[in-house]
Every structure is written in C-alpha cells, then in structure tokens.
C-alpha cells in the first residue's frame, strides 16, 4: 500500500470505499425503481376496459333483441330473459375490489350501479311481457338506451383513467432513464476505479518482483565474493606452506654444493667444479625466489611486522654495492654511489630495507645492457617535512609510462620476451613497493623507453633520526666508487 501511495495520488483504500459506496447506494435505488415500474406496468395493463367493453356489448345485444321483438313476435320471453341474464352477469362480475384486475376501480363508479338499476327495472317488468308486450318493450328499450348512455360514460372514464395510468408509467420510465444514465456513469466509475486499482497493484507487484530479483542477485554476488576471498586465502596459505617446505630441501642442496665446492671432501676436477657451481647458483636463485614468494604471501596474509632498528642508509647502500660487486662485474655496468657526508640514520626494518635496495639494484643490472651505467644516490633533504630518499637510476631499456603501474603488481613483467631473457619472478618491484608501504613511504618510478629508469624511494620524515644535521657537502666518491668495476 505504501508503494501505491507513493506512486499514485490516491490510496487504493479510498478508491475502494468510493466504489463500494456507489454500488451500495445506487443498486437498491435502482431495484426499487424497477419494482415501481413493474407494479405500474401491471396496473396499466389491467383488464377493466375488457369488462367495460363486454358490458357494452351485452347491452347492445339486449337492445338488438328487444328491437327485434318489437316487430317479431317469435322472439320468446326466454330469449329476452337470457340476454338480460347476460347483462346481469357482466354487472355482477365486475372486477372484484382489491383484486389485481380492478386497477381502475370501476366498481367505485356510479355508472355500473345506475345500469344495474335500469336492468332491475326491466327484470321487474318481465312478467308484463305476457300481458302487455308492447308496453314492456317500450320500457325495456328506453331503459336499455339509458343504460347504454351510462355505459358510454363509463367507457370514457375508463379510457381517461387508462391514459392517466399510462402517463404515470411513461413518467416513471423517463425518470428511470435518467437514473439509469446516472447508474451507468457510476458503473463506469466503478470499473475505472477497479482498473486503476488493478494497474496500481500490477505496478506494485512488478516493483516487488524487481526488488526481489535484485536482492537475489546481490545475495549471489556476496556469495561469490566470499567464495573468492576464501579461495584467495587458501591459495595464500598454501603458497606460504609450500614455500616453507621447499626451503628445507633447498638448504641441503645449497649447503652440500657449497661443501663440495670447497675442498673439504677432496679435490674436484674442472668439469665437476663447474657442475657444482651450477647447482649452487641455481639453488641460490631458487632460494631467492622462494624467499620472495614467502615474503609476498606473508604480506598478503598481513602477518608482516617490522623489526625496527636504527640504520645508516649510507652504510647500507655501500654494503649492498659491495655484496653485488660480482654481479656488477658480470653485467659490465659502471655503478656510481652518491651519499651525504653525514650518516643518514633512519628507523626501519634493516632486512626489508636492504631487500628494497638489493631488488632495485638487481633490476637495474638486469635491465641495463653491458656498457651502460647505474647510479645510486642517498638524499637527506634540508626541508624537515621531506623524508630521506634513495634514488636508483640506470640507462637501461626503460618502461613505457603506461606500463609503470603494472610492474608493481606481482608476477607481471612488462614484456614476456624480456622475462625469459632476464629470468625473474616478477616479484622484485612488488616486494619493494610492499616493503616501502609497510614503512609508510612511497615508491616513484620515472622512465623513458630506451633511455633508462629512475626509481625514487622516499621514507617518511618521521623515520629520520634527529640530531643529525643534514649535510650538503657530499662525498661524491666513496671508497666504493674507487672500486667502480668496469671490467666488462
């Protein structure tokens, strides 16, 4: 109902009430009128005129018989008596007062009783027929004529009354016609009202159906979402478990290949040494991958907690370069390091931050052709509202600007062919971003295709430890750049 009330100007109840009121009022009125008309019709079709006509007829037949008797002595007293009897029978058997026949109340008129008086006179004079036939006939004819005159008046009266009655009936009919018109209008209103109700009901039902369908759809979506969330969670925990289980045998492979490489178990020939090296480096790579996967799944599970300590970014960067010198040498790239004179001490998780630097460096090495260069810069800004920055720039293949957001998503390397060439899980940059995010920092990447890429990691200013004034005088070349290897 509420819905109908909003959709339409009237409520359904109002329409119902009006319709019922119309029906309740008009129908009994109409029925009463019909009954009136029925009784009027019955009255108007009364048979008084028949009785009146029959009386006239018998009087005329009596007159004919009497007239015949004047000239014809053969007309017997019995014949005259019979005709008189017939007239009496018409007078005696007028419509009974109060019966359905007596609609014009003929018996209440004076004419029939006068006719009776005349007939009574003839009846009384009948014995005279034998003695003085002529005198009787004169009297009888006179009285019959008088009776006929009365009957004529009765006839006029009957016609007048009949017409009046027909007029009443006609009036009733005309009135009834107007009432019928009104009733028809009411009926149309009723039907219209019902139609209106039906339409509103249909609309309400339609709306309800649509709402129900929508609800069902929403419920399905929710179910699907819950399912997806659950599946994702299962996948993450599966990944974590599998990675963990893989690491255990891998430790054996790496450890024993290391042992074999060192001459603890006796000398190896060149071929054997080469194979053992391969096993060792493959194991290392696999371990790195598994570690990345573990990190990622931990991040996904939200289980990561930062083990915060105070770290000197300068030293950390230098240490990273130092640890990668072999790879740098192999890649044939010149790497320059630029750090402030003063140590840039920040509060952060050492392992994660180191991994960030390692990954960024590894990426630069991976995607820069031999002979190119890379640069790593630590910046401690003067403005205290800005945080310390680590910038890693290279002259590598670069990335199209539209692909930049993708490289921060797990398992996505921009180019499938490159991925095959450069071997990688596609987890490096996503982990960088995740770890920096954990510290509340930001990672920005700027790149020109074919010219190089610059990645800037900015830590929040509150992580910078106070008391250490930012120095502008930079040690552009540290002991490490002296070792800038360029042996490609």
């Amino acid at each position, binding site marked *: 109902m509420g819905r109908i009330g909003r959709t339409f100007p009237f409520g359904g109840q109002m329409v119902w009430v009006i319709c019922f009121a119309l029906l309740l009022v008009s129908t009994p009125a109409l029925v009463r009128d019909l009954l009136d008309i029925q009784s009027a019709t019955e009255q108007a079709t009364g048979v008084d005129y028949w009785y009146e006509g*029959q009386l006239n007829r018998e009087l005329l037949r009596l007159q004919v018989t009497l007239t015949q008797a004047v000239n014809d002595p053969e007309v017997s007293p019995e014949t005259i008596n*019979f005709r008189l009897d017939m007239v009496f029978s018409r007078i005696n058997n007028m419509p009974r007062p109060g*019966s359905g026949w007596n609609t014009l109340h003929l018996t209440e008129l004076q004419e029939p009783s006068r006719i009776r008086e005349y007939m009574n006179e003839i009846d009384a004079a009948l014995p005279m027929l034998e003695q003085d036939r002529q005198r009787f006939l004169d009297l009888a004819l006179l009285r019959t004529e008088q009776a006929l005159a009365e009957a004529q008046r009765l006839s006029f009266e009957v016609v007048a009354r009949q017409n009046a009655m027909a007029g009443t009936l006609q009036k009733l009919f005309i009135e009834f016609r107007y009432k019928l018109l009104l009733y028809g209008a009411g009926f149309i209103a009723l039907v219209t009202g019902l139609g209106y109700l039906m339409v509103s009901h249909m609309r309400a039902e339609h709306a309800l*159906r*649509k709402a*129900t*369908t929508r609800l069902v759809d929403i419920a399905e979506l929710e179910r699907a979402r819950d399912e997806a969330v659950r599946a994702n969670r299962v996948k993450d925990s599966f990944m974590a478990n599998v990675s963990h289980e893989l690491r255990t045998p891998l430790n054996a492979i790496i450890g024993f290949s290391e042992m074999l490489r060192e001459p603890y178990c006796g000398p190896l020939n060149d071929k054997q040494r080469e194979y053992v090296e391969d096993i060792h480096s493959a194991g290392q790579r696999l371990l790195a991958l598994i570690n990345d996967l573990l990190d990622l799944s931990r991040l996904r599970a939200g289980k990561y907690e930062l083990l915060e300590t105070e770290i000197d970014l300068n030293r950390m960067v230098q240490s990273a370069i130092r640890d990668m010198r072999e790879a740098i040498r192999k890649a044939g790239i010149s790497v320059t390091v630029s750090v402030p004179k003063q140590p840039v001490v920040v509060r952060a998780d050492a392992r994660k931050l180191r991994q960030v630097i390692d990954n960024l460096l590894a990426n630069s090495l991976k995607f820069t052709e031999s002979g190119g260069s890379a640069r790593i810069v630590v910046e401690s800004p003067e403005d205290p509202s800005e945080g310390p920055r680590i910038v890693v720039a290279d002259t590598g293949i670069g990335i199209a600007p539209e692909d930049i957001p993708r490289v921060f998503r797990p398992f996505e390397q921009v180019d499938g062919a490159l991925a095959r060439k450069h071997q990688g899980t596609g987890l490096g940059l996503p982990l960088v971003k995740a770890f920096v995010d954990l510290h509340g920092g930001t990672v920005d990447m700027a790149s020109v295709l074919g010219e190089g890429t610059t990645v800037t990691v900015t830590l929040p200013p509150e992580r910078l430890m106070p008391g250490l004034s930012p120095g502008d005088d930079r040690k552009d070349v540290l002991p490490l750049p002296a070792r800038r290897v360029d042996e490609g």
Partner: protein
Amino acid sequence: MHPIGGTLPAPESDRIAPCAGLARCFRHAAELTLPGLIGLASALLLLKDIAAAESDYKVVRPPTHVVGTAVPAPEGPVILTVSGKILPPDGRAEIAFDRAGLESLGVVSFTTATNWTDGATVFEGVLLKNVLEAVQIAPDSKELLLTALNDYQAVMPVEDALDWPVILAFKENGRELSVRDRGPLWVVYPCHVNDRFATRLYLSRWVWQLASISVR
C-alpha cells in the same frame, strides 16, 4: 534476469498437506452435496406435482358412469355439448350433457383462491378429465376450444385437463352458479395446487358460462 524471478516455489510441506486425502474427500463431498440437495428438492417438487393430481380434491360423489359405455342422452336442459375429435362408443359426433349426465361422471370439490372471488372458495363440479374420458377424445387430440354463452372463446391444451384436476364447477361455496353469476359451468383451475394457474397465460382459460367444448 534471475531464473527464479520473484516467485519462489512453495516449500514441500505446504504442497502436500499431511491429510490431503481426507481434505479432498471432504471437498468432494461438499461439491456433491449442493447439487444433490437441489436434485432431491426438485424431485420432491415434481413428485408433489404428480401426487397433487390425485389428492388435491375431495370426491363428493364417485362416478356412476362406466368409462367405455355410451353416455345416456340428456333428459333435462342441455348445459354442455362436446364435439370435435371424439370417439364415443355409440359413434355420435356431438355429446350433450344435462346436469344429471354430468354428475354421473363423479362430483368432486376443492377449496382455492381465485382472481374473481374473495378468499378461499369451495368449488364443486365435475373433473374435466372425466368428461373427456367419457366422450373418449381421440388420442391425437391437442386442444379444447371452450365456448361460453356470450360466444367468448378460449383454447386450452388437453394436457391441462389430463394432468391437473381442472373442474367444470356448478357450485361456488355450496351455491348453485346461475347464468347471472358465472354459471351454469365455470372452468376452475386448481390454484391451490399450483400458483401458475393464476397467471395471465391461464386466466383466459377460466371460461365461465361454459356452453360447449370442441376437441381439436
């Protein structure tokens, strides 16, 4: 849109009531009861109509005339003549009745209201059916042309006379009907048995001052 749409199927428990068989039985019984009662009532009404033909009049004097024998010639004044498709044993084309001849067919009476009399009126007369049997009307007769003394005529289906105790009355409330009233014979229908004899269709057949019957 969703395959189910807005209507969900009723739960199983709603569709199969625990005592569905019993409920159906009751429903069927109810469905059968009403037409059954109507049929019974109409049968009773029909029986009443049939029975009425026998029981709704009193025998004043049983018939002395034996059906199949010739009607004796009238000795007194003739009050009724019957002609037309009649096959009397003596082969006459027209049979005339005096009062005694009519009364020999048996006298009955009943009390009924009529359109011409006040209140219940006792009528005494001869069953029209007995008259028709006495003159032995032809089996294919359809109607009776009733003619009155004033030459008024009305047509009555033969069934009226054969199915209902229609009488030719010569007494009203114990008084002889004269020509000045509606005598000597008045066709009176049994209104007390069936109201329809008081409707216009039948009223024209209540011929008074009946003089002759022509079987057609």
